[in-house]
């Protein structure tokens, strides 16, 4: 039971942290933030890895785990790269206009 209580505390505090973290965001960053947060939600790949690790040689579990890992990594790799592509445009702008002054 204590493990569950602990997990629920973690859930609660994580949620509160999430609410506080992005209180104020300029509209410019809404799309990149959504995309970045979306990449982070691919953290479920940890669950896929755990599933594969605990498969004990059961092939269906290995296949499901591997498939799920693939989906999650697609989310993670694609998400971070796409976010970086968007943000690169902003930062390139910054240095260029900064250099002009």
């Amino acid at each position: 039971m204590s493990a569950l209580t602990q997990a629920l505390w973690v859930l609660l505090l994580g949620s509160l942290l999430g609410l506080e973290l992005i209180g104020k965001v300029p509209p410019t960053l809404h799309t990149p933030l959504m995309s970045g947060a979306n990449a982070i939600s691919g953290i479920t790949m940890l669950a896929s890895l755990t599933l594969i690790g605990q498969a004990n040689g059961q092939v269906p579990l290995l296949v499901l785990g591997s498939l799920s890992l693939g989906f999650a990594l697609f989310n993670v790799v694609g998400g971070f790269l796409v976010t970086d592509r968007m943000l690169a445009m902003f930062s390139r702008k910054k240095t260029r206009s900064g250099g002009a002054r």
Partner: protein
Amino acid sequence: MAGLNLLPALIDLVAVLLLALGIKGLSKVSTARSANGLAALAMGLAVLGLLIQQPLSPQAWLWIAIGTTVGGLLGLVTARRVPMTAMPETVALFNGCGGMASLLVALGVALYGSGGSPGLVEQISIVISVFVGAITFSGSIVAMGKLQGWIDTPGWTQSSLRHGVNIALAVACLVGALALPGAMAGSPLWLLVVASSLLGIGVTLPIGGADMPVVISLLNSYSGVAAAAAGFVVGSQLLIVAGAMVGAAGLILTQVMCTAMNRSLVSVLFGGALGGSASVGGGGDEAGYTRITSCSAEECALALEAAERVVFVPGYGLAVAQAQHALRELSKLLEAHGVEVSYAIHPVAGRMPGHMNVLLAEADVPYEQLLEMDTINPEFPRTDVVIVLGANDVVNPDAKSDSSSPLYGMPVLEVDQARQVFVVKRSLGAGYAGIKNALFELPQTAMVFGDAKVVLNGLLSELRSMGAGKKAAA
């Protein structure tokens, strides 16, 4: 031994800290890019911590390698290839896959879970993970299909029939969820999977394109919840924290978007498409307009030539036409002639908040020229020429004056205050909200029909030849 157990725990803690700092940094322009890298690093650390903790057989490594290679490479290629205009769809696709990953983990544990029958907590977590994961997946795919124009809004989804269908599906989910603990690998599980997937489709399908950003943001929040649920399933606190953070952050973003559109989340989710589905994406609905003035690119160029202050209002049409570079060229030319140029950015212009900022940044438009709604609205009365490029609902004056309009109350760009307005549009077809725009019939408004890129290039060549003519005369 204690040291060995401590290390992964410490790595996890650092990973959570970096993830939190990453999300926080993503909300500031100056730190956003490094914050994104920080979050990616945190994810890598989390994986490292897990791999240290959990010894793996060569067979397991093989399957990990397969999943990593395929998923990672596809992600890499997609991220590199996808055009900036398709960003909302792409985020929806990635998001759906995150939901699918959580769903598959829960299925794996439910079907082949080792160590006897799962406890109550595990069962509840599996139900939540399957339910939310399936809705996230099917909902995101539908959202992507609608944004890409692959899926239309079927007529029946605009009648109250859809509520009946969705309630029936929700009841089916509930039945499956309640029956699941008794027969973990049996038919209740599949009932839950199928009914949840259909519910995701049934809920997303009736929603109009104008509200799609809100839906994607909400689904993004769901995929966080699905990850947190998967965290309960496999007993990973790191997963629970990260999932909860993303879930909460997604909710905040969703709320911000609803506020910008003056819509409540409830009306977005259950209200159906604004103004019916008849003309969504269509171009033929020209009835109802009586006093339209249309003009050529040449006349528009003449007005620009004489103007001192010009404001561009970009919308989805600009994105579709890939006209951001042509627009930047035009404003450079105008600036060279001493014209004051700025861009009015409506918070929900395009298909996602910030969509226009991303698009214009790609074309090297300086930050300072992108003005938000509250900044630019008082400036319109002293603006000579406004050029609306493929935007529609966000400049509809009915939102302020006509209480019977479905848009009534939504904050809009008050371009009707400017001296002259040119609307560049392919046709008189309705916008995503599917309603008429009173702006088009105002005496100071002229329509320039055509693809945004073609029109902008036309304006460019007109202005260049005018400039050349002037030089020759002088």
